[in-house]
């Protein structure tokens, strides 16, 4: 693995991706854009899992591909989350005729 890309590059990439996602959640007001930003954050965690798996030595007693399994299951979860999220956004869009998360403010206090 001497000529490989060092682990830190992956981690920097993952952190940057994660920050982009977090920034997107905080800054964007469109519900769909917020959903996309959340997906970016989940994928940043996936990059971490895969990088740590690739560069780490598996702990004896654990399976050999823990990191990969994590990533596969997280992809599945992310898909389910999008399905639920789009459903909820559609429901709100039909009521408010807007996809802007700041507009949904009938509950407050």
């Amino acid at each position, binding site marked *: 693995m001497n000529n490989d890309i060092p682990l830190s590059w992956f*981690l920097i990439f*993952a952190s940057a991706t*994660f920050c982009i*996602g*977090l920034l997107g*959640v905080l800054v964007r007001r469109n*519900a769909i854009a*917020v*959903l996309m930003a*959340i997906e970016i*954050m*989940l994928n*940043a*965690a*996936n990059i*971490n*899992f895969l*990088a*740590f798996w690739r560069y*780490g*030595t*598996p*702990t004896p*007693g*654990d*399976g050999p591909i*823990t*990191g990969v*399994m*994590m990533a596969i*299951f*997280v992809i599945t*979860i992310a898909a*389910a*989350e999008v399905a*639920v*999220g789009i*459903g*909820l*956004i559609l*429901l*709100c869009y039909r*009521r408010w005729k807007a996809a802007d*998360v700041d507009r*949904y403010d*009938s*509950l*407050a*206090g």
Partner: protein
Amino acid sequence: MSQAFVNREFWFLAPEIFLTVWGLLVLIADFGPLRDVPAARRNRVLGMMSLAGAVITLFIGYMALMESVEMFGTEVFKPLALNLTQADYSLFSGTLAADSSTAFLNLVVVALLAMVIGISMSWNFTEHVGEYYSLLLWTAVAMMFLIAAEELLTLFLTLETMTLGLYMMAALEKSKRRSAEAGLKYFVYGSVSSALFLFGLSLIYGLTGTTTLAGIQAALSLGGSFGLQSNIAGATAFLLVMVGLGFKIAAVPFHQWAPDTYEGAPAPVTAWIAAGSKIASFVAMMKILLNALPSWSSGSPVGLAAENFSTPGWIGVVAVVSAVTMTYGNFAALAQKNFKRMLAYSSIAHAGYMLVGVLAAAVSIKKGQAAGAVLFYLVVYGFSTVGALAVAAWMARDKGTDEISDLNGLGRTSPMLAVCIVLLMLSLIGMPPLGGFFGKLYMFMEAMNSGERGRLTLQWLVMLGLFNSVVSAFYYVRVLKAMFLRPSEGEPLKPAASGVTWAIVISTLVAVGFGLYPEPLVETMRSSALPMLTSGSRITTNRDYDAERLKDYQKQRSEKIRDLREQLRKKDAGPAMAPPAKPGEGNLSSR
């Protein structure tokens, strides 16, 4: 692998398997034979069907509990044998715990589920009846797995399964605008926090190279990384994980979703979020903090000198979160006029109290005792909250709103239920002869007795907790004032539906019963908590298990228990053996 062993393994998973299949049957019944039936009737039929499923699951869960008691001796109900419970048992290469503690908590979750189903049947709030009940059953399954999870992937999967179901259920009351808003807000806050949580988990995986809680604990303590000072990766990982967990238990500053979701969601869903999901998430939180990450709790490894305590670790962070949570929750609740919103803030405040117990478990030498006190509090709180939210369902059916003023004059129209509600509110305040009082008492006592480490912090927190209990009295008493001192305006509430009545009565019985006689439950919880926090010594099934070893282990175990019994018998004329505690079980199964 012997046949008997496979049967045992099946027994441990039987409640979950049964509920999953039953949920599918409910869905099939809704889409098949009941397709053209009006929603109100479908609600009754499918509700009865789900209730039957929950009651059968209670029986199966009880048998699983008995199986685990048979397997590991009778320690669940015998505190004196506590030190024998170190080793226990797990399924699927150590990803799921299967012992008497999970079996017992499964019973609690299913009993709460049955009450929530009863509340849901009281009025028809959604067209999507089949989806609603099957989601309810499946989220219960996810909660049971979350309680049992011993590994990060399992934990994340079950946490997500649970919350994804709850997002949808919160938005199911389609005739109301606020329900959709509640669902979306819950979803946005929830999925952001689970993304942060997952990133934290990925860092923990990177630091330790493993995803099992016991493996993480071993790797961290072997690596000698204590506390979080000059441990930037560890501090980041912990803070991210804390955001995720703090969201699930509704701790300040991750609580913003809770008031809106509690108010907007239909009352039974609110009850389910407030009770079931909180219990499961708190257990998961205690497992992560106390089982996987004890090395980061403070600067010194457990048992060393107190002067090292000043080195920062997660104890400080959790202490601040706890203090802010209970204070904010109580003071914000003072200003509320909506009943469900008030209960949301009160639920935030209760999360703050329970974090004191978690801290006590972190610094105390008697970890099991302190964690058991938190579990006791969780059970009592869970039942009381479901009972209180049953009242909200009652109001929603008759008035369509859930303001506190809608309760005006209830003391005259339904005096019996009003008295039950009084008892529930007093238990939530923490009045002496009731369950809520003993919950607080055990937890705060553990915090005061936790030894030198962190005593100062915990003493301050306990004082703050007591002060907050006094503050909380003001808003709970407002409910009592409305019921008894104010005349009713407009239409009085019609007599409550039987599901609501049952939920209120059962939760009152739990609050009063465990107040007058708290010993069985608290001892059970104490002995349950210990295996939860010491998964390192589990017997895993697939790799290092063999039937012979288990047999030897059981033999040694029964000999030890026999010896202990002998000793006890010599000491005095037989110790009082606490009867098995099954909150709500008897009442429900007799229906």
